[in-house]
């Protein structure tokens, strides 16, 4: 190609950093139990760092058994004495307050989210935080309308919900968990992921400010051990987890034989399928967004790309060109496309898969971009010449790594796409409507994007088939896992 832009020579934009001023962060965070900040009985704290700089941001309490007991006790008391007695209408008004307060403090939440998680400010500002607020706003309105959602079924709340959220969309996943739980009339003990606790702790401040009755939402921080204590607690009626399929299975084993209800939102290895009649430029944009959005730390990431053979070469060329124009670096810069990998641990996982991909004989491509010296970084990566049996095509990598395969016929690609134990999401790109509906109805996945990808909305149910989990979050269907029926 002539006249191709060399993005590494004459394409340097001036820095456009979002200011990190005007945010309120403490240097040390205790646990939020029964409406108050309490020191952990475990007396332990751990550091949370900025993955883009490796600098410590704050110390976070690590909840032990006594702390978890106290949190569940507070949630149970709040359920028994206050929350279950409150009318749906009044519950809803509290949740609306939370939504409004998040909107008022949206900038602060966005900046903190990007500092703590490494995600780019463009995404936390335009997607994570607004959607989190929207989730609370949406579910607030359901609080006094549950009998219309489930006619003839007398919906009732469950009690205390133990909720464990991941580090990829910290605040958004918390909203997905807490909003429907409260709307359905439950109380909550929530544990955010250990690398991204800060927005959860800021939410605790919002909850205090909203005047929510003490103990209705309790936020305990810590590692997996703390989560296990929550899951196993006898006074917990409901477990909601978003995370890896491996951990989801451990949790399901732990609650086997009990009456605890569960929602599991687990891993994925989504197929993103491009047909020769697709609008290719849009499709390439969709592939980029599908796999490199949030550094690929997305359970529904379009990590397996299937390209119809007739357009393979042009799609790969366009993809590589587009990858060259991606900015990798400072998450706080408004121009950055790909931020920092969330943790050293996750970077090691991703790098190991890249090594495996090469060893399996797949061909790697990474753009020439530079990455900062400090912090955890991974260039957007794609693999071609990938076989269906390769581990990079089978296992969830949870990073910016795309495995590309080709196909000739519709039936072939459906078989290949469904040949996975996962079933969270899928994407289809074609201009032909009947082909879209053939694909979307045959792909075994809970969310299917046609000519778009990675779109989310509070009104839209999200969740997996097969080993990607069970239960739905979002929409009317997302209420059901927090209710019981006669």
């Amino acid at each position, binding site marked *: 190609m002539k006249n191709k832009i060399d993005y590494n020579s004459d394409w340097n934009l001036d820095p456009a950093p979002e200011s990190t001023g005007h945010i309120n962060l403490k240097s040390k965070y205790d646990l939020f139990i029964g409406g108050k900040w309490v020191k952990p009985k475990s007396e332990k704290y751990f550091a949370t760092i900025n993955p883009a700089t490796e600098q410590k941001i704050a110390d976070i309490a690590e909840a032990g058994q006594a702390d978890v007991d106290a949190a569940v006790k507070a949630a149970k008391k709040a359920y028994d004495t206050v929350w279950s007695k409150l009318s749906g209408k009044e519950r809803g008004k509290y949740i609306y307050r939370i939504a409004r307060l998040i909107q008022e403090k949206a900038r602060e939440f966005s900046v903190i989210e990007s500092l703590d998680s490494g995600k780019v400010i463009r995404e936390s500002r335009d997607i994570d935080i607004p959607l989190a607020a929207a989730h609370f706003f949406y579910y607030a309105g359901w609080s006094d309308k549950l009998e219309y959602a489930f006619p003839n079924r007398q919906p009732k709340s469950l009690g205390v919900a133990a909720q464990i959220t991941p580090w990829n969309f910290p605040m958004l996943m918390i909203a997905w968990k807490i909003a429907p739980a409260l709307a359905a009339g439950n109380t909550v003990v929530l544990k955010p992921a250990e690398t991204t606790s800060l927005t959860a702790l800021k939410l605790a401040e919002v909850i205090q400010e909203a005047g929510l009755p003490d103990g209705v939402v309790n936020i305990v921080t810590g590692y997996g051990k703390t989560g296990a204590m929550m899951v196993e607690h006898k006074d917990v009626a409901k477990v909601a987890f978003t995370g890896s*399929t491996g951990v989801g299975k451990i949790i399901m084993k732990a609650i086997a034989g009990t009456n605890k209800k569960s929602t599991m939102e687990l891993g994925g290895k989504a197929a993103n399928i491009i047909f020769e009649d697709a609008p290719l430029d849009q499709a390439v944009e969709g592939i980029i967004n599908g796999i490199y959005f949030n550094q690929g730390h997305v359970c529904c990431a379009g990590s397996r790309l299937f390209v119809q053979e007739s357009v393979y070469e042009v799609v790969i060329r366009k993809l590589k060109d587009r990858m060259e124009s991606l900015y990798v670096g400072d998450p706080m810069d408004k121009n950055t496309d790909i931020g920092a990998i969330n943790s050293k641990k996750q970077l090691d996982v991703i790098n190991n898969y890249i090594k495996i991909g090469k060893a399996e004989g797949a061909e790697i491509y990474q753009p020439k971009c530079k990455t900062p010296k400090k912090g955890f970084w991974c260039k957007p990566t794609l693999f071609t010449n990938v076989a269906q049996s390769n581990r990079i095509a089978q296992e969830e990598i949870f990073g910016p790594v795309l495995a590309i395969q080709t196909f000739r016929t519709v039936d072939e690609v459906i078989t290949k796409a469904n040949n996975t134990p996962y079933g969270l999401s899928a994407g289809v790109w074609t201009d032909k409507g009947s082909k879209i509906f053939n694909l979307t109805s045959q792909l075994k996945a809970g969310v299917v994007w046609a000519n778009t990808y990675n*779109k989310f*909305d509070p*009104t839209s*149910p999200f969740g997996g088939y097969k080993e990607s989990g069970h239960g739905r979050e979002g929409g009317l269907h997302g209420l059901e896992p927090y209710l019981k029926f006669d």
Partner: protein
Amino acid sequence: MSRIEVLKTYKIYIGGKFPRTESGRYYQPKANGKLLGNICLSSRKDFRNATVAARSAQGGWAAKSAYNRSQILYRIAEILEGRRTQFIEELIQQGSKKPQAEKEVNLSIDRLIYFAGWCDKYTQIFSSVNPVASSHFNFSVPEPTGVVAILAPEESGLLGLVSQIAPTIAGGNTCVVLASENIPLCSITLAEVLSTSDVPGGVINILTGNRKELIPHFSAHMDVNALVYCGNNSSEIKIIHEAAVDNLKRVILRDSGSYISDKYESPHLISSLQEIKTTWHPVEKIGAAGSGY
């Protein structure tokens, strides 16, 4: 000389065929002190064969039009109606009183009709069009979970069985069922009804045998998507929950109780064996903000 009665060999039902168990084993349940027969003591291998049959039938069954599935369920009821006497006699043989047996058969037929009617309606009840804030058309519909293993109620050999099978297949799933261990006769006679009712082979597979022996296999099989357990034995439930984790199969607990109750007539028996699929598609809005892909 009086006529010598022809006795029936009870078989199992896999992929539309009637084999005896591959294991060659049998057991001898009794009622009122009398032997009911040499009933197949199905093995793990029988269960695996049945699951293969259910899997290969599932795509085709789910792809049938809802109207067609509805007619096939209705057809089962028609054929069952024609064989009322045989079922009543079997129920009596298994220890029921005549009025009770008649009621059970009548209700079983009516229940099939009930679920036949749901086949082309539950999708409308459980679907939604979701008003997303972006310029997309977004809708959610139920889809069958896939292959369902059913541990049918022990105490209700016909009505209980029909009450579990009907909502499962109405929803486009296929199933492998373990019939009541002690009163198994109607389950196999029902299989004869199914095989003459336009139900494709493999959509419903029926085994007889020992619950305790088969529970671990039913729960652990990696190509079973959901397991329905009818009963209330807490140690069995624990075994099922633990084994089901390996492929995260959905476990649906249904307490045994009186199947006469109309709580077994509910579309939620269908929806509990469905997955919700959400589809997004852009809506073009030329000249308006928020357009795009």
